């Protein structure tokens, strides 16, 4: 089974880069043969190009919710965003719509899509650093993703305990 770990984010908008940072960490922990780890700042329809041909994809991104605690990690799936599909973005289709579109067009969309989202503090200030609480959440998030991969039989390099 081909697995893709895809970190999403904008590298110069503070906490918006957390998905990229976590992907960076994960890349050092896994062999290319076991799992492909990628990072991108592309959004919308372009994400389909990354995901086609994989059986499972784990997406990592930042999120801002009404009552979330900064640094919190959520495990979500495409269904959780189903209610966001109907609201057309003024700019591009969102992830949920892109996935549904791929499915309807019969493209080789992964069967399993898991999304890990980290609650962000600030995604509107230009900075290459994360805010402290989000920075501190990275090791925990890496562990959570590793556990997810482990649960599917994907081991780290040298079978290390992550």
């Amino acid at each position: 089974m081909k697995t893709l770990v895809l970190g999403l984010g904008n590298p110069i908008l503070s906490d918006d880069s957390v998905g990229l940072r976590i992907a960076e960490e994960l890349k050092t922990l896994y062999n290319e043969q076991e799992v492909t780890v990628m990072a991108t700042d592309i959004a919308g329809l372009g994400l389909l190009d990354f995901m086609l041909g994989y059986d499972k994809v784990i997406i990592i991104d930042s999120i801002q919710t009404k009552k979330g605690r900064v640094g919190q990690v959520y495990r979500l799936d495409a269904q959780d965003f189903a209610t966001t599909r109907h609201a057309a973005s003024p700019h591009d289709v969102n992830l949920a719509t892109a996935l549904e579109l791929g499915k309807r067009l019969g493209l080789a969309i992964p069967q399993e899509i898991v999304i890990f989202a980290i609650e962000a503090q600030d995604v509107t200030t230009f900075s290459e650093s994360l805010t402290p609480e989000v920075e501190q959440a990275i090791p925990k998030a890496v562990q959570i993703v590793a556990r997810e991969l482990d649960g599917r039989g994907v081991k780290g390099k040298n079978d290390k305990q992550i």
Partner: protein
Amino acid sequence: MKRITIDPITRLEGHGRIEIFLDDEGNVANSYLQVPEFRGFEKFCEGRPVEELPRITPRICGVCPSAHHMASTKAVDAVFHADPPPAAKKLRELYYSAHMCHSHIAHFYALAAPDFVLGPDADPAQRNILGVIAKVGIGIGGEVIKHRAYAQDIQAVIGGKATHSVCGLPGGMSRPITEEERKDFEEKAKSMVEFAKFSLKLFDDIVLANKDYMNLITGDIYTMKSYYMGMVDAKNKVNFYDGNIRVVDPEGKEIAKFKPADYLDYIGEHTEPWSYLKFPFLKRVGWKGFTEGKESGVYRVAPLARLNAADGMATPLAQEAYEKMYQTLGGKPVHATLAFHWARLVELVYAAERLLELSQDKEVTDPNIRTIPTATPDEGVGVVEAPRGTLYHHYKTDDKGVVEKVNLIVATVQNNPAMNMSIKKAAQKLITKGKAATEGLLNMVEMAFRAYDPCLACATHSLPGQMPLEVIIRDPQGNILERLSRKL
């Protein structure tokens, strides 16, 4: 009527916020569109080598990075007083034509088409690209994805990276293309022209043939008489990559044509206490408030504005489409805001034809694609037409090329005054005597918004990955009467 100043904290609740104030009779007195401004970009760029900016600035926007890359590269050329060789310019324009294709295709099918194919009253759950495909067929969905991918491929090969391009260097490009690559682009471009023609025909069959839609397009709510700005070539035809900037008045008469470097003589920026975003206006006319007409310095950019500001299109099929649009809508200039969608398709045809022209030009494989700069860097302006309007990058450096000052006028900010006015018109029509047609209001307001395709708060990737929009209706004392928002 109570005036409300926006506290920085409140904008964290939503990315797009519209505040509507009613008067004592319950009719709309005023409305304000607030989009949060990203903070600290200039600070972020200071102290960096200016040639890095073409790789940094594309990250301002997740959807039009190529536009920033090109404007930035041209600004860096200007800072170093370096003139790229002809092959480099053609290669850049080829790349950029691919970008316009990809962007306009995505916008039309994902954003504009739902309003027209399904109708503004359709259930929001259907009014998206999925609804379009359900209605017009899966085959079309496949074609959209395919041609978007073609355009992306071309950008990736020339740009050097699938995501954000790295090809723009001071005085040229990072590498030439091979004959094999050129041939591939030519094939893709041919297909793109056919797809562009098809898209225009789709618009024809679905929109122009529908009387209700035509009434919506030409109706009062979405009409606004403003000035129009766009980049034109030496023959005053629309050009996305290079040229001078032309401005016409609400009657279509040219009132200015200037070189990119002179933009500050023509464009002023007005500020309001309730918005982080500025309100550009034409200095020649002056800021007269949020009003229409010849006396007001409000101007618009993006597809309709570009077509209004030019004398025609530089390629045959696009020219035909341009003539048909103006004939149908009663001559130039067209003030109907929804016609931005039509103009966008005319531009798609031009971008595809231009892509084909350039990919068939033998000079585009010339290996001489760089003029090494020799002058001392100081200051420069680079301008392109981004999908959403004229984009200005202005950099000032020390004598070592280290950035001291950055000024950007992004496309959407120039449509900020007009967006506010369009939204107010929609609101005034739909809220009378304190009664708000809630579902209709949000749709109509969104339609005005979507026609401008605003590009500012969208650079964030945070899930759910869209711009939440909230409409707040207040009484004269500022108390909230109603709060409408897109479900998240």
